[in-house]
Structures are given as C-alpha cells and as structure tokens.
C-alpha cells in the first residue's frame, strides 16, 4: 500500500469522502433493492450505484491517480461512459420482459400494473 502515503492531505480527505459517498450511495441502492416491494420499484435501485455511487468512486479514483502520478488520469471517464450507456440496456430489456410476463399472466392492460397490485404473487420458480 505504498503510494497512498504520498497523497497530500486535501486529496486524501477528498478521496476518502468521495469513497464513502460512493459506496454509501451504492449500498443505499442495493438496500433499496432489498427493501422495495415490487419489481418495478426495484428497477430503480441499482441506478443509484451506477450513477451516484460509481460517479463518486470514479472521481475519487481519478483524483487519486492524477495526484499520485502528477498527470491527469482520466481513463475512469470511460467507465463512467460505459456504465451510463450499458446499464440502461439491461434495465430496459428487463423491465420490458417483466411487463410482458406480467401481462401474459394477468392478461391485463399495462395501466393496471401499478403499485403493489398485480405483480409478483410469489411465483417461486423461475420459468426456464
């Protein structure tokens, strides 16, 4: 754990803050994942990690290495971009799949699929 000792205090503290912020947000997101009652609510949870959480930690990382190497280290930006672009793909596909599955099971219109009603009546086996 060499390098870290070379960090100036301001950077160390900033990094520490960002790290705690980022991981805290991520944790909150996943707590939401646990706590929220329906799938459609849970869909929102991981984005906390991919936006706020990832953002903070990536900034921390950029800061850390830029200071350590005394040059701008920006490649974390790429992660930011990739995460921002790729996470929605999964979530979109997933949310739509969930809608489909609920519809075929309830034969209902979308608009009834609101709130706690109608979703997830504890079918315990994943289908195929």
């Amino acid at each position: 754990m060499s390098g870290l000792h070379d960090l100036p205090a301001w950077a160390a503290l900033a990094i520490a803050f960002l790290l705690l912020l980022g991981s805290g947000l991520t944790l909150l997101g996943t707590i939401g994942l646990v706590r929220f009652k329906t799938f459609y609510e849970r869909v929102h949870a991981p984005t906390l990690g991919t936006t706020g959480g990832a953002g903070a930690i990536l900034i921390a990382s950029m800061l850390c290495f830029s200071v350590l190497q005394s040059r701008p280290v920006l490649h974390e930006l790429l992660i930011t971009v990739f995460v921002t672009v790729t996470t929605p793909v999964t979530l979109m596909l997933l949310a739509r799949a969930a809608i489909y599955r609920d519809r075929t099971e309830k034969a209902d219109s979308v608009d009834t699929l609101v709130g706690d009603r109608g979703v997830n009546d504890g079918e315990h086996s994943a289908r195929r």
Partner: protein
Amino acid sequence: MSTTILLWSLLASQLMLAAAMACAAYRILVGPRAQDRVLGVDAIYVCGMLLILTFGIRNGSMIYFEAALVIALLGFVSTAALAKFLMRGEVIE
C-alpha cells in the same frame, strides 16, 4: 493522519460495497421472480466493479483498472442476455 483517514474510509467503503453485494445477492437468492434476480446480478456486477476500483485506490495501483473496465463495458452482456432470454425465451434469434 489524512492517510489514516483515507485508509479507514477505504476499509469502510469496501465493507459497504461488500454489504451492497450482499444485498444484491439477497435479491438473487430470494427473487421472487427471475427479473428480480437479474436485477440483482446487474447490481452485484456494478458493486464488484466499484470494489475493484476502491481496491485499486487502496493499493495505489492502476493495474486493476482493466478488470473494472471489462465489467463496465462487457458485464452487461450477460445480464442483457438473461433479460432477453426472459422476454423471448431465446438469446439469439
């Protein structure tokens, strides 16, 4: 002092990320439906990626960056495949 704080916050942050992974894993384990689990997988991948980043900071080394990059860029492929499988019963049509 500041380094100590940083180290402690690194530790705390890693612990929080591990806890976040645990929460996501809980969703995978409990479900109740497949899409919830896929959501959990997606989240756990992100948490893993962040954990890797914190680990890089902790060691002051950029050598761990690729792994995070791989998750960021390609991690979604498997979850997207899972999601598509749920929707269509087939990943590639």
